[in-house]
């Protein structure tokens, strides 16, 4: 039954209080122990389509009469268009339309970051559209740009009010401390670089707009496009059948969609607007850089007495302030905490969410700080974390927390320290580091799914959900198969189109499985109930004695009838089961946890750093597909290694222009950079969370990598690396600083 509640809705650590229509979630969770389909490894069901190139991504869609757009972008970090004459471009071969600044709101004459769209062309081919851009006669007046986040704080150039969090009294906390450490940590701007660039095709069909788009949120695009273009929601259809990666950058419609819609309107033809790789590396979002000035105090026994942090996030011209302070507030028990966060507005391209935004950056700072404090107190880092274990904060209990179990499983990897250190030689120094993780990932309502059960005994999950490469479609098929007592091969899924199924949640914040999964299970249970109703009448049994198992309807007294025989009574008709995602447990914090142990080698002559082994243990509730989850885990760790060692968007400090626009300049990890990875999930259902007890495994694995690696470096070389990425230059600087420091200490002793 539908119920209206006032609830806290969370996506990627962003909370809002909303009225929500939710439905009760009357199903009990599945019993502990092995199930038939859920919890067993399942290769992704659309794997062959993707692997053989049959899958059509947005990039592959070619509509009849489709035109291609190219976008004139500001070459300057801040400028004003002095003159723009598009008449020659208008006449160029193949050109069908040119949009000048102001033609759609996304095209501006006063660009405020490099890459901001100014004008756009649609032509028969992409090459013609690109060529026509060069025919636009444009003059910019370059204006002074603000690109330094610390300067932005001084000038109060902020996108949002500074955000503070206070608990207890930090002054008193520091007064009670036996040891205090203080340090500044810096994290770089990281680029998403999904293999499929941001793109959409807009096709007007009468007064309906069809948007084919590479997106993480089909239903959100429908809402955003209808709002911005003033269309009724049901006049916008959004399609994303196959999607080539997002990592947080594809939650919204983006300028390119509205440019394509404008050009399609102007020409009466479908228009594709696809970013090139260079455009992708300029204007498709980024993980914003941070500066974290942190301080921590503890008693001699390691008990934290105070934590304090000032965080500056370099958000760019637009964006939102993800919580870099979150790990400091949530990871450990500490009575006295003060954090202050600035979200600076700069003449740089807007940030977008990137796999655990804020927390990934903040975990690096907080975990390094804790390690430095532990070192000062001569306490083992794992022991330090156990002593400060947060049982709950804000007097809000956790729906489930098994971080202690993660620490326990991490022990055997942590115990390799001596052996790893012993493998050091003259140039390569080896060490082991450890870090923990807290993050959201509990999902939430609303989310809906249907199950269509045909007279052939095959079921289809129907929902307007996207699969961005996480395997969410396969997980939904597993959940439905489990509930219907069918083998996985008897369940299809129809998704990827707003015209096809009901509202589905965003695939961000590790939310697809915890948001959609319970709705799919509820829909399957509804379909199963209808089957049992029919069977009870047909075979003259009581409903409560019947259940679905192994493709049969079975009765408690031993009767068994093939499902096809029962649903065959429908002839060509189908059953429709409907399901909704129930609310999250009231007053509880729904969080994911984990710990990782990294083994790192440092070449002290060249500064080269190699991550050689990562053992990761995470707690994300019940695991639906251990195979898919391990893929996401490994992928998260590998992205974390890129974030730690090689990836950095570089800006020219004079002009604010981006220097790393190509994949030879912006260094993504390759297969040759991958360490040995041990990935484990505790797989303990969260008893308070939905009918599944599942949280999302997508983001947690990338969180601890950088801090664990930094500690391993400190342990092996004595060098403090406090800035990401740990390039050779940074490593050599830290080694030299450590050398000078130890020389000074030796001198002191001699004196």
């Amino acid at each position, binding site marked *: 039954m539908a119920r209206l509640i006032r609830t806290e809705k969370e996506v990627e650590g962003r909370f809002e209080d909303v009225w929500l229509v939710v439905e009760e979630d009357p199903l009990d969770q599945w019993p502990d122990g092995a199930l038939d389909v859920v919890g067993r490894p399942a*290769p992704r069901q659309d794997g062959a389509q*993707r*692997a053989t*190139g049959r899958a059509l991504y947005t990039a592959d869609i070619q509509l009849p009469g489709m035109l291609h757009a190219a976008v004139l972008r500001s070459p300057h970090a801040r400028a004003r268009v002095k003159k723009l004459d598009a008449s020659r471009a208008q006449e160029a071969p193949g050109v069908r339309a040119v949009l000048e600044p102001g033609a759609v709101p996304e095209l501006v004459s006063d660009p405020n970051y490099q890459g901001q769209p100014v004008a756009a062309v649609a032509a028969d081919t992409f090459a013609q559209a690109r060529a026509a851009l060069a025919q636009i006669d444009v003059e910019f007046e370059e204006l002074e740009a603000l690109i330094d986040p610390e300067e932005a704080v001084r000038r109060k150039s902020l996108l949002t009010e500074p955000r503070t969090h206070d608990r207890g009294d930090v002054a008193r906390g520091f007064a009670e401390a036996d040891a205090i450490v203080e340090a500044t940590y810096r994290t770089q701007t990281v680029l998403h670089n999904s*293999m499929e660039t941001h793109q959409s095709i807009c096709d007007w069909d009468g007064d309906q707009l069809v948007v084919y788009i590479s997106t993480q949120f089909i239903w959100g695009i429908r809402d955003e496009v209808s709002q911005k273009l003033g269309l009724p929601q049901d006049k916008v259809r959004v399609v994303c059948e196959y999607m*080539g*990666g997002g990592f947080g950058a594809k939650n919204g419609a983006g300028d390119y969609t509205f440019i394509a819609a404008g050009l399609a309107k102007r020409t009466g033809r479908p228009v594709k607007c696809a970013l090139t790789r260079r455009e992708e590396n300029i204007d498709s979002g980024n993980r914003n850089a941070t500066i974290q000035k942190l301080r921590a105090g503890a008693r001699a026994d390691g008990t934290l007495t105070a934590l304090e942090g000032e965080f500056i996030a370099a958000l760019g011209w637009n964006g939102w302030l993800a919580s870099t302070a979150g790990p400091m507030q949530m990871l450990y028990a500490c009575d006295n905490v003060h954090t202050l966060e600035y979200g600076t507005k700069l003449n740089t391209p807007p940030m977008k969410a990137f796999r655990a935004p804020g927390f990934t950056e903040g975990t690096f700072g907080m975990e390094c700080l804790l390690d430095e404090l532990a070192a000062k107190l001569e306490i083992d880092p794992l022991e330090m974390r156990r002593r400060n274990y947060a049982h709950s904060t804000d007097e809000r209990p956790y729906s489930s927390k098994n971080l202690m179990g993660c620490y326990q499983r991490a022990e055997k990897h942590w115990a390799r320290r001596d052996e790893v250190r012993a493998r050091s030689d003259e140039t390569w120094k080896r060490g082991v580091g450890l870090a923990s993780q807290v993050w959201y990932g509990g999902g939430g309502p609303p989310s809906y799914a249907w199950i269509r059960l045909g007279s052939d005994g095959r079921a289809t999950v129907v929902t307007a959900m996207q699969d961005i490469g996480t395997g969410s479609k396969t997980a939904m098929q597993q959940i439905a198969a489990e509930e219907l007592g069918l083998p996985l091969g008897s369940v299809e899924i129809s998704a990827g189109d707003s015209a096809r199924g009901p509202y589905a949640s965003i695939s961000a914040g590790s939310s697809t499985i915890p948001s959609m999964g319970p709705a799919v299970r509820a829909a399957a249970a509804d379909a199963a109930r209808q089957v049992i109703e029919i069977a009870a009448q047909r075979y003259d049994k009581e409903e409560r004695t019947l259940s679905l198992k192994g493709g049969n309807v079975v009765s408690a007294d031993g009767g068994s009838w093939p499902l096809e025989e029962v649903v065959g009574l429908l002839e060509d008709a189908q059953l429709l089961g409907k399901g909704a995602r129930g609310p999250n447990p009231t007053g509880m914090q729904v969080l994911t946890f984990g710990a990782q142990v990294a083994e790192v080698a440092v070449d002290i002559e060249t500064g080269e750093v190699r991550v050689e082994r990562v053992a990761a243990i995470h707690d994300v509730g019940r695991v639906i597909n251990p195979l898919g989850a391990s893929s996401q885990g*490994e992928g998260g760790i590998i992205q974390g290694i890129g974030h730690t060692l090689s990836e950095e968007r570089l800006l020219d400090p004079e002009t604010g222009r981006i220097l790393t626009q190509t994949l030879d300049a912006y260094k993504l990890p390759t297969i040759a950079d991958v360490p040995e990875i041990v990935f484990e999930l505790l797989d303990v259902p969260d008893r308070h969370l939905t009918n599944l007890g599942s949280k999302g495994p997508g983001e947690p694995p990338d969180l601890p990598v950088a801090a664990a690696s930094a500690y391993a470096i400190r342990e092996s070389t004595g060098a403090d690396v406090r800035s990401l990425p740990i390039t050779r230059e940074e490593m050599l600087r830290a080694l030299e600083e450590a050398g000078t420091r130890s020389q000074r200490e030796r001198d002191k002793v001699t004196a």
Partner: protein
Amino acid sequence: MNIELQINGGKYELEVEVGRSLAEVLREDLGLTGTKIACFEGHCGACTGQVDGVPTLSCITLAHTVEASEITTIEGLREHPLVGAFVRTDALQCGFCTPGQIVSAAALVESNPHPSDEQIRHAMAGNLCRCGTYPKIEEAIRTWQD
């Protein structure tokens, strides 16, 4: 200009402007969209095809230069055991780079059916995967005949 290409065992006569890449011709003129374009400047490997059995970046290969060669794309490798191996080991997530990975891997196992991990890493280092499926790509290639 008129060119004749030999692709996956078939002959195609095409009118192609000089300067167009093999990747564009495959995707736009022939509808062979299994070959992906992800960077269009030879940095990522998503566009990998085989030219006379050699993995080749089709986005920076001009179509008219490969007239005399035998071209193999993912569409010509659909029955290759590597496809099943990639699916079985879950060596793909979003899948956008996967056809290129399989084309590179197919060339590797053709010349070396039992490559070592080191040889796999060497042969596959030019194929980027942002989802980070690398450990499972290694496993798929290691076990492709299973």
